[in-house]
């Protein structure tokens, strides 16, 4: 990002923290957690600790960092080097990324960029740049409402697993929009807190069906008392449409009989299908690594300028592209030169697609496009007087 754009984005972040920073709540056991932040210029600062949330608020006002993070783990000494921290426990965390769901709309809104010759186009990244044949191609993925909807579906499936299979109380499950292209699910308090990496890998494998043995199809008769993946398989077979590619008959019982006669090849095909349609596509690395720090809720995502925000009880009613806008102020406008940007929807309006053109847009839309790497600010055209007014009004 060029210097001017950085300054404008940083000002926007500062305004957000000034007006709404108080929304950032203290995590439990704050003194046992590791914090970190990413300045707009420079490297990530880690291994910080705060006695109370006030100290963090002060830092945000002073630094207006690009990202603010907090560990899901608690430690005896959060400021020590990683191996000396003395790990205590960690909330179970799941990350669902819309991009990984590979929705068909990706080829409409994704962009690739050649680092060699600078060529940029809409569509999926080719293997080589057609102009200069370089393979140093950058992919810029954008999450459209459809992608985010798919991520939401995946999140709901995850929640069903957590509640039904793992018996986790729904009051302990918190769902957050990441501020970019996905959802974060965190289980605050549970018997899983003290699980180590390997134990967490088992949980992740259960969700992604990694290591699911095909023997599960053949071992015994499916019973109503079945649990776990066997229950899911039984339910899946029962709910398949009357005409289905894997089975000749339409009756549940007959299908089970057919299943027991499946050839090796058929078993394999069916297993793949079963897993694709029933597992949860989480990023297993995020769940198994207990040394991560995560963007804090109510702080801004530097990849979009949107807020990481808790979705509330009704995930279905949460519209991230409306509800996660940091400072939605129609008065504040900006002039930006857009390199390339697909059609986007933000705050109930749609913009673009744009390619190599100058545009006047609301500041939050400008911040979004520039943060995404789709362009740069020419000026922050906001009426400076009126902006100051807003700020001083709040102060008063």
């Amino acid at each position, binding site marked *: 990002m060029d210097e001017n754009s950085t300054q404008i984005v940083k000002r926007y972040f500062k305004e957000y923290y000034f007006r709404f920073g108080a929304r950032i709540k203290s995590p439990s056991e704050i003194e046992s957690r590791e914090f970190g932040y990413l300045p707009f210029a420079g490297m990530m600062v880690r291994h910080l600790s705060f006695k109370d949330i006030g100290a963090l608020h002060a830092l945000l006002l002073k630094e207006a960092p690009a990202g603010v993070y907090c560990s899901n783990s608690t430690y005896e000494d959060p400021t020590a*080097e*990683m*191996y*000396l*921290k003395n*790990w205590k426990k960690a909330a179970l965390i799941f990350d669902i990324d819309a991009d990984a769901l590979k929705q068909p709309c990706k080829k409409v809104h994704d962009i690739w960029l050649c680092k060699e010759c600078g060529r940029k186009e809409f569509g999926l990244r080719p293997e080589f740049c057609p102009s200069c044949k370089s393979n140093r191609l950058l992919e810029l993925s954008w999450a459209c409402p459809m992608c985010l909807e798919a991520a939401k579906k995946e999140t709901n499936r995850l929640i069903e697993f957590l509640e*039904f*299979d*793992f*018996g*986790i109380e729904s009051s302990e499950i918190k769902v957050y929009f990441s501020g970019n292209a996905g959802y974060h699910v965190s289980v605050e308090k*549970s*018997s*899983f807190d*003290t*699980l*180590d*990496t*390997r*134990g967490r*890998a*088992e*949980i*992740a*494998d*259960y969700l992604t*069906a*990694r*290591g*699911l*043995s095909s*023997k*599960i199809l053949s071992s015994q008769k499916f019973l109503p*008392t*079945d*649990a*776990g*993946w*066997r*229950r899911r398989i039984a339910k899946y077979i029962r709910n398949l449409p009357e005409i289905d590619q894997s089975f000749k008959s339409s009756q549940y019982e007959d299908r089970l009989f057919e299943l027991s006669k499946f050839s090796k090849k058929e078993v394999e095909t069916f297993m793949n299908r079963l897993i694709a349609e029933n597992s949860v596509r989480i990023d*297993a*690395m995020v769940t*198994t*690594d207990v*040394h991560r720090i995560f963007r804090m809720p109510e702080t801004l995502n530097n990849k979009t300028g949107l807020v990481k925000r808790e979705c509330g009880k009704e995930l279905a009613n949460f519209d991230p592209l409306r509800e996660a806008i940091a400072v939605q102020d129609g008065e504040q406008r900006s002039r930006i030169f857009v390199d390339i940007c697909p059609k986007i929807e933000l705050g109930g309006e749609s913009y673009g697609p744009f390619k190599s053109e100058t545009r006047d847009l609301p500041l939050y839309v400008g911040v979004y496009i520039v943060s995404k790497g789709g362009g740069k600010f020419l000026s922050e055209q906001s009426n400076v007087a009126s902006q100051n007014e807003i700020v001083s009004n709040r102060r008063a």
Partner: protein
Amino acid sequence: MEFGSDDLAKYPFLPDVGEFVKEMEISVSALSSSDYDKVVRRAEERVVEAIQKREVSYPISDRQPKTEDEKVRLGLRPMVGGAQIEMLSFPISLALVKATKLDHLANIYSLAEAKRAVKLLQSSQSSRYADHELGTVLTIFRRVFGIRVETFKVEHRDDYFTVPVADYVKRASKFHKEEWKLVNKPVTRGKVILDRQDLVRLVGDEIEAMIGQRLKLMPSGTKLPDNLQEIVKKIVRMAPPEPQSPYTIIHIAPENYPPCVRRAIDLLDKGENVPHYGRFLMATYLLSVGKSVDDIVSMFPKAPDFKQNVTKYQVEHLAGLRGSKTRYRVPSCRTLQTHQFCFMDPVKCHQITSPLQYPSRKNSGSTQESLGKNSRPGEAKSNASESRKRSKRDWMKIQHR
């Protein structure tokens, strides 16, 4: 629930046995008296069985096997004596083993006793536990292992139990067969449903570790009466030789080292502080893939306070060239995880227990199944690890019987 003396005879590692022995006020010197002949004889026999059969038998006092077949299946022996003999002989066996000062015998004995306990916990004359047995088993799980086990009713079927998912996963993630993976288990509402065999198998390692720990913590150098010292001498003669460690050396390229080792090397390269465990891992790992002491020493930075000789001495020590002359083993993934020095690769570290099992390029295409199958190139093939492998297989046999 109180354990009865039959329970204590079956499971003499229970903390209650200590109490019991204390109450009886038996002093070590009393063991030379002929009153304890039978107890001492059984104590010796326990250790001998461990050496010869790798498993301690269990006489039953209150019940005889009904058929020959059952006798074989349960490994029952004719009754040697009452429950008290069975119970009191255990601490004496521990004292005997401790007095041999043979670490590998301690391992053999712990495992052999654990197998006995597992069999007892698993077996029952019928397909269901009798009420009293059930009570004992549930109490042991709760009190000794801290697991809330509940019975799970499936009509007209054998015993089923539920174990909280977290308790299950903490233990089962060490096992490598696919049927132990959580994904292949019936899981519902935070519980895993297990049959009797698997339930007990879940804590087999812990029983072994518990007995091993007890041996470790026993004061050494306790003066034993003459008759026991004679037995100790006999046992020492019988004990298998201490395992040597013929390491198979296979060259592995640095980029194919496991993530934890790479991390340690990385940190050293960057001049950052590497915690004790990281250094230990790096040195033992590199030694077992065939690096020389000098190679390894040269990887440590020449920091101002760096004392080349100290490092050299330490590495030589780990290599078994000094001091105790035992070559140190590469720490297990478990241990590294508890010391927060695991940087697991979710694909390549899948289902491995030692950094030595991390797939090097040559066989990185191998399937999950073969990853789970014990030995890897470069793995230390000491007799000890062999016998552990054997014992693992034995466990499996027990549960699949």
